[in-house]
Every structure is written in C-alpha cells, then in structure tokens.
C-alpha cells in the first residue's frame, strides 16, 4: 500500500500514540523512536482516527492554510502519511 488514496482513512498503528505528558511539545511515540510535532503535522496525526478520510483531512487543512498552494497541501499530506506508513506508524483503513 505505497500511496494513500483520497478515500483512505489513516489510523495510528498499534504501538504508536501521541504523548500525553503535560507541558511537553506534542510527540508521536513509536517503537522506533519519537517524532516531535506541531502545526499541520500535528493536525494530520490528530486526524488519524480511522474514520476521517485523507480527502477530508486535506480539505480541512486547505481551508486553514489559505496562503499555501492547495496542491502542495494535498501532496505534502499524502507524502507525510505515506512515509509514516512505511515506518508502520500509520495504517490506511
């Protein structure tokens, strides 16, 4: 499953979760290490609930980041999720 489709519903894989430590920068904890997140990266991970489609995630981001090229928002989001999928940190439902 190399590339998510607009209908893909990303979900954090088993063993991966957002850190809940108070007062710390949001961190995606994974078996291989940790990824500090903020901005759109954090929003994308928060939306990885297995219910929301990639198309819906992209649409929300595009409406929020109006200064960014909508096509770049779409391709960056797909690539971000694809790389996390390659690390088995995100599944596509």
């Amino acid at each position, binding site marked *: 499953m190399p590339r998510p489709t607009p209908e893909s519903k990303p979900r954090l894989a*088993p*063993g991966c979760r957002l850190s*809940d430590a108070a007062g710390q920068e949001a961190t995606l904890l994974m*078996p*291989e290490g*940790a*990824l500090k997140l903020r901005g759109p990266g954090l929003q994308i991970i928060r939306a990885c609930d297995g219910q929301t489609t990639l198309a819906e995630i992209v649409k929300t981001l595009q409406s929020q980041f109006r200064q960014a090229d909508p096509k770049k928002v779409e391709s960056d989001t797909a690539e971000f999720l694809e790389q996390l999928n*390659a690390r088995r940190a995100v599944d596509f439902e």
Partner: protein
Amino acid sequence: MSPQVPPARPERSRRASLPAPFEQSRNPEPQPDRGPQNAACIIGPLALIAEITHRCPLHCVYCSNPLEMKSRAAELSTAQWITVFEQAAKLGTMQVDLTGGEPLARIDLTELIAAARAAKLYTNLITSGIGLTQERLNALAHAGLDHIQLSFQDSAAAPADEFAGANAHEKKLSIAAAIAKHRIGFTLNFVVHRGNLARLDEMIALAENLGAQRVEIAHVQYYGWAAENRSALLPTRAQLDRSLEIIQAAEARLRGRLRVEYVVPDYYARYPKACMGGWGRKLMLIDPSGEALPCHAARTIPNLHFENVTKHSLEWIWQESESFQKFRGENWMQEPCRTCDRRTLDFGGCRCQALMLAGDAAATDPVCSLSPKHELVTSILYRVNESPEIDTGSSQMATLVRPSWIYRPNPS
C-alpha cells in the same frame, strides 16, 4: 532473553527524514552539540533500559548479559523500580525498555508497566515470550503496554532450540499468535549469525505470517556470551553480502506492510557503530541490582566505578557521576578519533569493544578501518572466511561439525 544488541532506537543509521508538511523538515531528536560536550548540555537520557532481572528460561549462545549475572536476591524491589521510572520521566526520558534476562520472570511485571505508563513513559517489553500466558498478556495490555519485541532464534524449530539451549520455538509461535490479536505494537526480533543466515528469507516470511508490524534482523554483537562463542557465530563475507540483498528486496516488497529494520555486523563495517548513540548521551541502563551503566558491557572496563540508584538520584548519576562522564564528549579521545571528521557521528565506536580487542577502552574501536589496530579485526575475519571447515549451515557437513556452544547459565 536479553537484547542481544543495544536497543538502538535513537541511533538507527538509516533514518529517512520525514517531510513536515508545508515547512522545513524537523529532526525528531535534539541535535548534539557539535563541540566538546560537558555534563551541563546533556539532555536525557532519551530511553531507559531496565534490565529488571537476569533470570531467564533461555540460554542463548549470543546473550548480551554480562558473564557475571545478578542473583534474584540482589534484584531491586517493585517500589524501587517505580521510583526509577518516575525519576527518569522527570529527567525527560520518553521510553523504557523492560528487558532482562527474561522480564516475565518478574511476577510484578504488570505492576511495573502500569507504573511506567503512569509516569508517562512509552513502554517496550523485550521478551522471549516464555512465561506469557493469555491472562498475563491481557493484564499487560490493560496496564498500557505499548510494544512487544518478541525474540526468535531461527525460523526452524531444531536450530532455534539449539541456539536458545531450550525447547522454546513452538511455544513462541503460539504466543506470537496471541500477541497479534491485541492492539499492541509487535516486532519480531531475529539475531542472525553464521548458523542461521541461510534461512533469512524464511525468518522474514515468519514475521509476515505472524502479523508483526516490524521485523528486526540484528547481527550478533560480540559482547558477553556472544564474545565467548564468536568463532562459531561470525558470518562469512559471502553470507553477509547475500543477507544484504535479501534485506533490500524485502524492504522494497514489504513497504507499508512490514517494516524491516537491520542491524549491521560491525566487524565487517568500514566505520564503527555509534555505540549506544554515544557514551552517556542518549541511553542509561539499570541492571537488576540497580547499578546504572552507560552500556550493557560497561562493567568489563577496569577501574570504573558504577553508581547504584538506591544510593544516588538518576539525575546525579546521569549528570555528575564519573562513570557517565568518563567517555562523554571528545576530551578522552585518542588519534585518529580526536581529529577525525566522523567523531561526532560514531563517537569513536564502542569503548567495550576497544577494550576487548585493543586492550584500551579509550582507543579507537578496532572495527574502524582508520584504527591503527584494525588488523586485529581483519585477521579474525580472515580466519572466518578462509577456514575450510566453517559450517555455514548449507552443507551436508552441517550436522557433523556442530560447534561446541558455551551456553548462558541462569543466575542463582
């Protein structure tokens, strides 16, 4: 079982950088200070390796535990371990690796995991699986266990049990099936060596079939019991080359389904590994009795005193103690490390290996091709590659020339 290689999360060599959407990509880890470091600028430890017992039902011929193990009577209590986890979390530690020995040998394992999660740590159980019942697995999941790394010694039962010195393989298969039913991160770990590399394809297939998200293929690192069995474990160059082809093909084929992680055999590498991500830089190991060590084999280094968590705070041990400062930064380095551009990448390699091979813990790790003592390693490899009686598991001679393994015993 114990981690046969330093659990290496923070120092993965082939870390592909993730693109952060719409902005410059960010490094997930704190960047090391480029200049000589002192205790004041050290963050962490990022991960804590909690060797909660040395007791183990397996007797693996490449176990990384020290030759002198800690007895059950010397082990820290539940309350003492919980204090360690809470202190680590306050220091900024994100993850605890519960290992051993076999961590399941501790009857309070569920309690320890619940406490580590309560302290906001990511919890990773490194286990042989032996002793893991359905009920216990449910309890661990309920306690919030994040990830299980389950060891296998081979894809085939007979050689697996030979390397483990115990009948364990069949039990592991049913335990793996039970783990896969839970929403717990699941990695299969294979330690590879001359005796099992012929079945690398089958090992990867086993991980795929057992429903793991990851498979770690880790070449033996020659410390502890592995060093005792080195002549029977070192792979040949031809085996190594073939294994790299298999790994690369598997990575491409399984992308998005099974993550393949690979730990290289440093005897064959051009440059040494960044052992533990650098001495006292990222990791702290606490042994069953509470002794804090910068790495698994640190106790082999003579005239170095290690502190105990029952006597000192984790923060003081990490920041101030002599043992954690001994090889931190660059001031201890000799040539060629001292002026080498790679010193901030590999930190001169492994101190324990430098001691073991070159007789000096401050020397350049002799596996480095730039080391003046590199010939110590090339001569070892020459014997492995030129010796006609070497059994690579593929010939009919295999059953006739079994190595006489030195098995890891159990502590009292």
